[in-house]
């Protein structure tokens, strides 16, 4: 019973935060709403006995990443009310609402079909109560998922290159050095 209450409260926090990110007029408010969603997810992790993940979620996401968002928003001076109503397609909202309702219906239907949990593992119990979750995390990260883990570094290289390109102003002298032709 207590599990259900915790789940419902945390889920509500996540959803309110997620909706807030989208509807807030001020980018700073959007970023703060994102913190709320990430906190809700951290609560879910605690309820699943993944305490380390919950701590990482709060420290890294809510602490570091969103603070970075706020820095960027404030440094760029876009912390004003931005009007994002670009008109859009005719009937866009109606179609979006219809798709949303259908999607929700599918999810609810699926939930009724899941009788005794998707896996044999009951919710809210640690996978292996004798091993600390940091060790378990390390084992899956450096054994089964080690390739994915290392591959993420390639993804980061791409992200760095992309950030440099997109934020760089055009440099005329660079073009000369490449032997630019007209």
């Amino acid at each position: 019973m207590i599990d259900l209450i915790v789940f419902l409260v945390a889920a509500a926090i996540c959803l309110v935060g997620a909706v807030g990110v989208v509807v807030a007029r001020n980018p700073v408010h959007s970023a703060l709403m994102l913190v709320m969603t990430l906190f809700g997810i951290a609560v879910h992790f605690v309820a699943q006995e993944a305490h380390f993940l919950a701590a990482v979620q709060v420290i890294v996401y809510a602490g570091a990443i969103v603070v970075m968002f706020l820095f960027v928003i404030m440094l760029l001076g876009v912390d004003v009310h931005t009007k994002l109503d670009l008109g859009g397609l005719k009937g866009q909202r109606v179609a979006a609402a219809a798709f949303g309702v259908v999607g929700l219906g599918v999810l609810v239907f699926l939930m009724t079909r899941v009788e005794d949990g998707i896996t044999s593992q009951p919710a809210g119990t640690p996978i292996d109560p004798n091993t600390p979750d940091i060790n378990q995390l390390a084992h899956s990260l450096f054994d089964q998922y080690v390739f994915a883990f290392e591959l993420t570094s390639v993804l980061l290289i791409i992200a760095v290159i992309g950030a440099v390109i997109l934020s760089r102003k055009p440099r005329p002298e660079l073009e000369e050095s490449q032997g630019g032709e007209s």
Partner: protein
Amino acid sequence: MFAQLTQFESPPVDFFSLTPLFILVGGAVVIMLVTSLSPRPIPGWFSTAVSVAASAGAAVVAMVLWNDVRESGPYSTVSDAIGIDGFSLFFTVLVSLGVIATALVGDAYVRREHIAAPEFHALLLTAATGAIVMASANDLVVMFIGLESLSIGLYILAAMQFRRPHGREAAMKYFVLGAFSSAFLLYGIALVYGTTGSTSLIVIRERTSSLGAMVSPSELLIVGIALLLVGFAFKVAAAPFHFWAPDVYEGSGSPVSGFMASVAKAAAFAGLLRVVVVALGANEGDWAVPLAVLSAISIIVGAVMAITQNDVKRMLAFSSVGHAGYILVGVQAATAEGMSSALFYLFAYTFMVIGSFAVVSVIGWDNGHPIERYEGLAKRRPWLAGAFTVFLLAQAGVPMTAGFVAKFLVIKSAVAEEIYWLAILAMVASVITAFMYLRIVMAMWARDADVDDAPRLAVAPATAFVVAAAVAITLVYGIIPDSLIEFTRDAVPALVAGN
């Protein structure tokens, strides 16, 4: 109360089989390091040379591995995350050749458009790494990160041409819709993981084939498969998930559009084949009909929409949607023959489309590519017009070209499975699309255009080489396709565990 220290053994890694990936990422790092650390400006050709050399090296190592696999069988490495089999090596070779061609065409392009050459080539190499990982992944998590490496690289490549008015729109559209489609794929992965209890394709195949429809609850798996199909359909630009393709192909630089239509499409098809057709092969009843419907819609949309366009790049974009439909004809047959026909089609199409976009890149223009600009091209540049004619006729499926053999093989695989309606539809639609291709050919050859005041077209030697090589491949595999057919027959994905 200290936690018990457990002995940890890292999984065995067969480094040689990962060498193609190392070479490609290494090439990108070398380009970035040398150009940023060098005290003097590095000429633009350096990046091109490293990019071509790295891709060529990757292709050569893949051929060596290919021989190993033929002798001693396929295997997996790094905790079964990466599978080395004919399928993954086929795509390693294909992607590497695609990068070589794009890098050579891009050499003149980055100079003309004043785009930073090191970043362009580094992104090509890292995106190619993602594409190869997608084709080799034995794990859904690895597949997803490969897909993101490819996609994020492509978003940036599309955004590099931000000075042109369409460039920004294209990049933004591609980014938003691409991220949206990745979310579909991720949700599908989550549901498949939920029902099968593993992200490993090897385990997923074992469990779905032993339990069949007994996977509980089976509805969850079906919805998971459906979401995976939507995600992959977005990436291969199959209708009705193709809306990004025309705008993005039009707004991106021509070499980048060629790269998207060839390498990105091939990688997405590789992912689709590996995850849906092979790992979830036991659930064929759930995905074969949806794939056939996607295929039919793509073929129709590709044919009908292409003939209404007046911009050559948009025509090629819609024709690319149609080609995705033809490849899906082979995929939905879900037989060994269907799979090898899809691989043949991808190989042939890669060179046709890179060649086409290379020609489009030479014609180059700031605001769109109206067909009027191609009028009288045969008088000004007969060889270029001749090459473009070959590519267009090959895409239309004219005999003696690789395009004909490819279309023939996919339709044959559908007929062998007695899916006659799709085979007939594919044949009728190929006649309709032929009209569109012939319109461009007619514009180039037949009309009397005033060519005297037209700007002189400079064809860089590297671009000329790519166009000539693509023409040669298109014609050679159109006349003697046997060796390539044999190559695709051996390129079967094998989901095996262990070394």
